[in-house]
């Protein structure tokens, strides 16, 4: 249930973001989820590609720096308080959250989250019968 996410270091230069997606697109790699975090100096593009190994190789070959990190993804009801209950599970277990991103297209919210201990987070969520998404679930979207 642990998902491999790629983080790409980007300088704040116009067109750089476009290049990443152009390269992935040309190589027939789909991106299931992504988020761009930016500072005044640089940005980090986080993405979950359909083929992380190939995506990493292709980006490296194109001289991007690529870091692989472990994230988890889950679905929660799209209703007030749902995310709060989920995060409480982690807080109660003493698991920290580095960042998360997500959206709610309909009845459910989908969240990608980087805990400081991915394996422990998965175990906690399973204990509480949360709806965890696997990498292959994500690629179906």
């Amino acid at each position, binding site marked *: 249930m642990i998902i491999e*996410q790629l*983080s790409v*270091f*980007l*300088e704040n230069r116009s067109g750089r973001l476009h290049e990443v997606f152009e390269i992935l697109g040309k190589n027939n790699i789909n991106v299931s989820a992504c988020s761009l*975090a930016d*500072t005044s*100096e*640089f940005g*980090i593009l*986080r993405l979950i590609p359909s083929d992380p190994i190939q995506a990493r190789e292709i980006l490296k070959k194109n*001289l*991007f*720096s*690529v*870091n692989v*990190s472990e994230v988890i993804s889950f679905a929660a009801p799209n209703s007030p308080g749902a995310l709060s209950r989920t995060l409480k599970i982690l807080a109660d277990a003493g698991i920290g959250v*580095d960042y998360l991103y997500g959206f709610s297209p309909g009845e459910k919210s989908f969240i990608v989250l*980087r805990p400081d201990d991915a394996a422990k987070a998965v175990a906690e969520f399973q204990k509480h019968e949360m709806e965890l998404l696997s990498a292959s679930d994500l690629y179906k979207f």
Partner: protein
Amino acid sequence: MEISIWNRHFETMPREQMKNVQSERLREAIERVYYNVPYYRAKMQEKGLGPEHIKSVDDLNKLPFTTKQDLRDNYPFGLFALPMSEIIRLHASSGTTGRPTVVGYSRRDIAVWSEVMARTLTSAGVSKNDFIQIAYGYGLFTGGLGLHYGGEKVGASVIPISGGNTRKQLQLMNDFGSTVLACTPSYASYLAEAIDESDIRREDLKLRVGIFGAEPWTDNMRKEIEKKLKIKAFDIYGLSEIIGPGVSFDCEYQNGLHINEDHFIPEIIDPDTLEVLPEGELGELVFTTVTKEGLPIIRYRTRDLTRLHFETCRCGRTLVRMEKCTGRSDDMLIIRGVNLFPSQIESVLLEMDETTPHYLLVVDRINNLDTLELHVEVEDRFYQDKISELQNLGKKIKNQIESTIGLTVNVKLVEPKTIERSEGKARRVIDKRKIR
């Protein structure tokens, strides 16, 4: 093991005897320039000097200095001491501003150049059994041909590949079994990266020695290149106005470069007062050529800052040693009144595990205040997913540099391989204050 010395007679000559040789050659050189170069005659006459006033090296400090500007003013052949029919080679240094400086060699000058280069190569352990890949530029620049003649003189198999064309460099290095690589230190470090990225395995290469020069580099950079290329790296110093590469060279103990002082007499002066400084003090290096025929040059101000040491070296050579030049007074930046050499930044970057020596300094003046920005690539594994870690890394680099140079610097991490790699002299500084 016996240390190889090309010319034991001159390279291990007792100091007193060396002084006599220098004095005799200096007298002859002064006669030649006085009677053959109107410019030098006029400058000596201005000071009330004739050849009769220069009896030994102790009289050197009476003579006028020569600068790059003097060479430009006498462009192209005004300072030559021989008729052009006796000049068999011309080289020129690229002038970034205005005219280039032109140097001319007689047949004997080329022989002297080959001799000093043979000493240089022998000192680095190069012999007729070696394959020397010369990746310095050939052409008007003296680097390529200087190494070339020296390589032939010691009998090595010379591969005159010249600079650039990295793919071919690697192919020949592999196929010919090059044992010696001669190029600029920045190109050496570029080649090391290229080898890593190629299909060539380092253990299949026979490379063991590097002869690197033509730009200032630090001891840390030497260690880095030695580690990356798995070779022993030797520094070589020279400038075309004096002869080209071969003015001074590293021995295996690498505790200063031995100057071929039977041909080029060094002095260290205070660049402001122009007074000669005592042994061991840091100042500007000045050379007088005493055997050159085509373009003899008197007290040439190199702009390079160094110190001289006269004790006999562990290698047995008595030739005076100059410390590795890590800064040129020309390269020196003055930021908010503080002197800064780009090599200082480079040293810090090489000492940190996280950073690479690929950097660019951008100097600007904003609201009448000088600003210093450092663009630097970090080692691949340090491009983290977490922003806080990257920001901490930036801060760490900033602190390290600020505590070394005493100036505020803005550190900007850049993407890997985005700083221009140089196949010649690396461009490390953009001074926007000058552009405006």
